[in-house]
């Protein structure tokens, strides 16, 4: 973004001011996350930088919080719970969200806007209200305090993300392709699996990623709908902060950040590879 030769002094000043603003915003977003990294190696059980750390004294650093995380059965169970719940709620919400998006993209579908609004509502309604509602509803059904209950609750929260990403993919979908398939003798079912599904896969993958992250990060609903047996990582961190201040939380946070980055990168690479293979973007 080089300045053009004809830029005036005012434009030059604005150009650099603009760059500065961008850097500040970027810092505002990223520093709270980066600060976690060094703090998770703090030898003292505090959330602050000790003088030894600032002096870069090796004695000020330790990896014992990581050891604690890997050896604690409570944390390990939270990891298992989080992953199980996230995977199953991702599968459910991806399946349902994709079907909903496909239905909503048909031009003869009635009350499209109203139904879309309804499907998106879990994203808009304050989480605490959804959570309280789910608590009472699931208690009646005997789902409160079960894995299935939490999985269903997370699937409901995550579906809107899938609906939105898949709908966006379908906006660019060329319906003459399904007509072409029909003219070539392909039944609607075959056309769906051979033509439509492969072409919307990148959108479905993106939606599934959002769904996974939604469930993996979620703490409010799981506190209401779940019980001790459904303790997930965010729940364990939340109670950890309130009950015993231990930098193990920072170690967990660091691991989660790295995990998220790896997950995002992998999925994005998968999505791009898929898009390239489908000939949807230039090689």
């Amino acid at each position, binding site marked *: 973004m080089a300045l053009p030769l004809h830029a005036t002094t005012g434009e030059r000043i604005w150009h650099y001011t603009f760059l500065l603003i961008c850097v500040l915003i970027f810092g505002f977003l990223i520093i709270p996350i980066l600060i976690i990294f060094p703090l998770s190696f703090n030898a003292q059980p505090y959330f602050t930088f000790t003088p030894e750390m600032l002096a870069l004294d090796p004695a000020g650093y330790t990896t014992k919080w990581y050891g604690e995380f890997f050896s604690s059965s409570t944390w390990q169970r939270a990891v298992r719970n989080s992953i199980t719940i996230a995977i199953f709620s991702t599968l459910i919400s991806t399946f349902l969200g994709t079907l909903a998006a496909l239905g909503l993209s048909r031009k003869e579908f009635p009350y499209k806007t109203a139904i879309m609004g309804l499907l998106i509502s879990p994203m808009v309604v304050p989480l605490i209200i959804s959570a309280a509602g789910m608590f009472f509803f699931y208690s009646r059904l005997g789902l409160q305090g079960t894995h299935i209950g939490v999985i269903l609750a997370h699937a409901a929260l995550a579906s809107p993300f899938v609906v939105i990403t898949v709908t966006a993919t379908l906006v660019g979908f060329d319906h003459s392709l399904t007509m072409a398939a029909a003219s070539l*003798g392909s039944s609607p079912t075959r056309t769906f699996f051979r033509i439509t599904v492969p072409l919307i896969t990148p959108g479905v993958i993106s939606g599934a990623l959002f769904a996974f992250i939604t469930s993996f990060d979620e703490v409010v609903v799981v506190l209401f709908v779940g019980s001790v047996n459904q303790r997930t990582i965010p729940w364990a961190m939340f109670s950890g902060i309130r009950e015993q201040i231990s930098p193990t939380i920072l170690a967990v946070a660091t691991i989660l950040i790295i995990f998220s980055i790896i997950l995002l990168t992998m999925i994005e690479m998968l999505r791009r590879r898929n898009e390239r293979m489908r000939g949807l973007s230039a090689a």
Partner: protein
Amino acid sequence: MPSANDILVRFENVQKSYDGEILVVKDFNLDMERGEFLTMLGPSGSGKTTCLMMLAGFEPATHGEIFLDGQPINRVPPHKRGIGMVFQNYALFPHMTVGENLSFPLEVRGMGKSEREEKVKRALDMVQLGDFANRRPGQLSGGQAQRVAVARSLVFDPEVVLMDEPLGALDKNLREQMQYEIKHIHENLEVTIMYVTHDQSEALTMSNRVAVFDDGVVQQLAPPDELYEQPTNAFVADFIGDNNRLLGTILSADGETCRVKADDGSEIIAKQINIAGVGERATLSLRPERVAVNPEPGQFDNNLQAKALELIYLGDHIRTRMEVCGHDDFIIKIPNSALHAQLSEGDNVNIGWSSNDCRALDPTD
């Protein structure tokens, strides 16, 4: 050519309305012979594509029946009609290679692998893309993509192939080249093709017969030469080729010819085609190339005075706008040859034409 009675496609009193009120297609009747190349030509919104979509099965007919090889097909779903189709935007499957695209309809029909490969190869060779089987549609140029689309619509040996403005997205030179290619494919395979376009030169180049559509009605269905030489109404005369219109009142008519008094008082003799009656208004239609400048005395039965208003140099001819009978939009084409007199703007000249070339049509304004 097949016998004249071998009707493959028949539209019988077909009507189509999308909203239940306005008819986009009004009482469409058509018999299409096996092996025929029939073009539906008309401005956008005239109902031609709707007819194509009804035959393909993507739009239901509101009223009437469509027959394919003698069988009514209104209740047959598109994928069971066995009709090939070429779309304007090619509609190639982007996630499949060219070979897989062509193989798809054969797979659907449960054909074995070796047979499929052989047919795909033959179809690609037919459109001169034999080496392209492993390319993806995204790597093809527009012309190549359209050739693949044509090959795909033919690879499963359908009886009828529908083409919906297939050349609309190509540039002019490529479009002309593809016109000849499609025409030759039609001649070689003896396949029946229904073609939709709004480009009249495309329709004239390729078709056995052309159906000119306007406002949901077929205005004229005829071979290209007949359509150009003998239009039966003013819309067709205007839509096909360049046309001069002269308006006037009918003085007398004897069934063969009629005398028409133009609005400036001059009298014109014209061929009687479709007129309301003596004393009524009529539209005279005359092709620009049938008008002669400074004709020999007695050569033509119509001789008038004209004033050249504008000369446009077009290389092989000079398009001249003239004032004739009170109309200032009368066009004649003067060939760019040594024999022809040079005109300049503002010149007054004699012009003439044969009453055979001047057709008196319905009095639409």
